[in-house]
C-alpha cells in the first residue's frame, strides 16, 4: 500500500504539535475546583491590565529606538555589524533573574541613572517605569535582531532605484524600505511582545508591584495554590496570544498574494 508522503509529513507535524501542547493537558488535572472568587479575580484582572498596558508602552519604546538602530545595523559592514549583534545578545543571553538584579542596581536609588531619575520623581523600583524599562531590556534584543533580518531582506537595488528616481534617503526609507520590511518587523515585534509579556525572572526583581500576569501567577500559586493559578493561566493565554497570532495571520495572507 502506498502512503501519500504529504500525509506522512502531516502526521509528523501533528505528533510534534501534540508533544508541544502536551503540558497544557495539565489544565484538566484533578486539582480541585478552580478559584475565581473576588479575592482572586480582582488582582488577576488588574494584572491583565498592567501587563497589556505597560507591555504596549514598552513596545512603543522598543519600536521607536529599535527600528532606526536595526536600519543602521543593516547598512553596517560585517565587522561593525557583528559588534552590534554581540551587544544585542548580551541581555538576551543573561538569565532573567540576573538581568533583573542588574537593572535594579543600575536604575535603583544607588545607581547613577537611578539617583538622577529620582531627582525628577521617577522611581525605578516597583513602579510602572521600572516595569516598562525591564520589558524594554528583555524584548529589544529580539526585536532589533529580527528587524535587521527584515531590512536585510529588502533588495538593495530597489532602494537604489528609488534614490535614482529622485528620493532622498529618508524618503527611500519611508516609501520603500519600511513598507517592504513591515511584515518582518511585525514578526520581530510579535516575538518581542511574547518574550516581554511572559517575562517573570527579571520583572519579579524590578517590579513586583504593579504586578503583571506572570508575577500574579506566582502570587496566586504562593497564596492560594494551583486552583487559583489555572484560571489566570487561561486569561493570560487569551490576553497575550491574539496580537502575535494576528501578525502571523497577516504574514501568511501576504505570502499568498
Amino acid at each position, binding site marked *: 500500500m502506498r502512503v501519500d508522503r504529504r500525509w506522512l509529513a502531516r502526521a509528523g507535524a501533528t505528533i510534534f504539535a501534540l508533544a508541544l501542547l502536551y503540558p497544557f493537558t495539565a489544565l484538566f488535572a484533578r486539582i480541585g475546583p478552580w478559584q475565581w472568587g473576588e479575592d482572586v479575580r480582582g488582582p488577576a484582572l488588574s494584572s491583565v491590565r498592567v501587563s497589556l498596558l505597560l507591555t504596549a508602552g514598552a513596545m512603543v519604546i522598543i519600536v521607536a529606538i529599535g527600528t532606526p538602530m536595526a536600519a543602521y545595523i543593516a547598512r553596517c559592514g560585517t565587522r561593525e555589524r557583528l559588534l552590534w549583534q554581540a551587544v544585542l545578545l548580551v541581555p538576551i543571553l543573561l538569565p532573567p533573574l540576573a538581568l533583573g538584579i542588574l537593572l535594579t542596581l543600575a536604575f535603583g536609588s544607588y545607581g547613577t541613572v537611578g539617583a538622577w531619575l529620582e531627582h525628577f520623581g521617577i522611581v525605578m523600583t516597583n513602579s510602572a517605569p521600572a516595569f516598562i524599562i525591564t520589558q524594554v531590556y528583555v524584548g529589544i534584543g529580539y526585536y532589533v535582531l529580527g528587524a535587521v533580518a527584515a531590512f536585510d531582506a529588502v533588495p538593495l537595488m530597489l532602494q537604489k532605484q528609488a534614490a535614482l528616481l529622485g528620493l532622498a534617503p529618508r524618503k527611500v526609507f519611508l516609501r*520603500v524600505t519600511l*513598507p*517592504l520590511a513591515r511584515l518582518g518587523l511585525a514578526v520581530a515585534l510579535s516575538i518581542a511582545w511574547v518574550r516581554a509579556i511572559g517575562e517573570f525572572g527579571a520583572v519579579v526583581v524590578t517590579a513586583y508591584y504593579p504586578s503583571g500576569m506572570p508575577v500574579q501567577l506566582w502570587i496566586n500559586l504562593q497564596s492560594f495554590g494551583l486552583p487559583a493559578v489555572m484560571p489566570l493561566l487561561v486569561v493570560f493565554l487569551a490576553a497575550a496570544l491574539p496580537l502575535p497570532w494576528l501578525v502571523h495571520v497577516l504574514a501568511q495572507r501576504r505570502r499568498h498574494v
Partner: protein
Amino acid sequence: MSWPNADVMFKAQIIKKRRDIKVNVSLELDKGSSLGLFGASGAGKSTVLACIAGIEEPDDGSVKLGDLQFFPPSLPLHKRPIGYLTQEPGLFPHLRVSENVSFGIPKHLAAEKEHCHWIETLRERLQLGPLWHAPASLISGGQARRVGLARMLARKPPLVLLDEPFAGLDRQLVRELIDDLIFWSRTLGFSMIAVDHQAEVLKRLCPEQALVLENGQIVQRGGWDELYGTPASPLLQSLLTPL
C-alpha cells in the same frame, strides 16, 4: 519637470578596478545622441553604466553632465538627473502599476494638469491601461519592462542609461520597446547610453555610434558600418557574426 543643465554634453572617464579586470573607459555624448556599449559578457560594460548612475563608485576619473559634477566627489543618487533601466526593472512590489509609474514625481507636481496629462500619455503609448491598477508584483516580466520604462520616462531625464533592458524578452516585444525608446528619445530629446551583448539590438537602438570594450578597455569606437567592416579584434568579429 525641468532639470538644470539639461541641454549640455555628457562627459565621463571611468576608472574602476574589479576583481578580474581594470575598467578604463572615457566617453562623450552630445545632447539627444545615443551611444551603444558593446562587448562580450564581463567586458565591463555594466560597470561603466553603474559608475555613471552612482550604483558603484569609480576609483578614479570624472563624470559630468554639463556643469553638474557626478564624480568626484560622489553626487548622491537622488541628485543625478538620469534614468536607469536594467534587465530587472526593479518595480516596487508593494505598489500598484500606476503608483510605480508616478513614483519619481514630487507630490507638489503630481496634481498639476500638465503632469497628469504626461502620465496619461505614457499610459496610452506604452499600453499600460489594462494593468494600471494591478499590483506590480502580479504582472508578467514583459509588462514589468514596460512599466519600468514608463516610470523612468515619467521624470523626463536628460540622460538615460540602459543596461540590457530587453534581455529574455521575445523579439516582437523587444522591437516594440526599442521603437518606444527611439520615439521618446526624439520627443523628449534625451541622450542615451545603452549596453547589450546583441549587436543587432544595440545597432537599432543606438544607430549613431558604438564603443567596443574588451577586458575593461576600449578596443574600437565609431559607426556600426566601421565595426562590421573592420572589426578591431577576432573576438569582436566573432561577436558580430550571426549564429
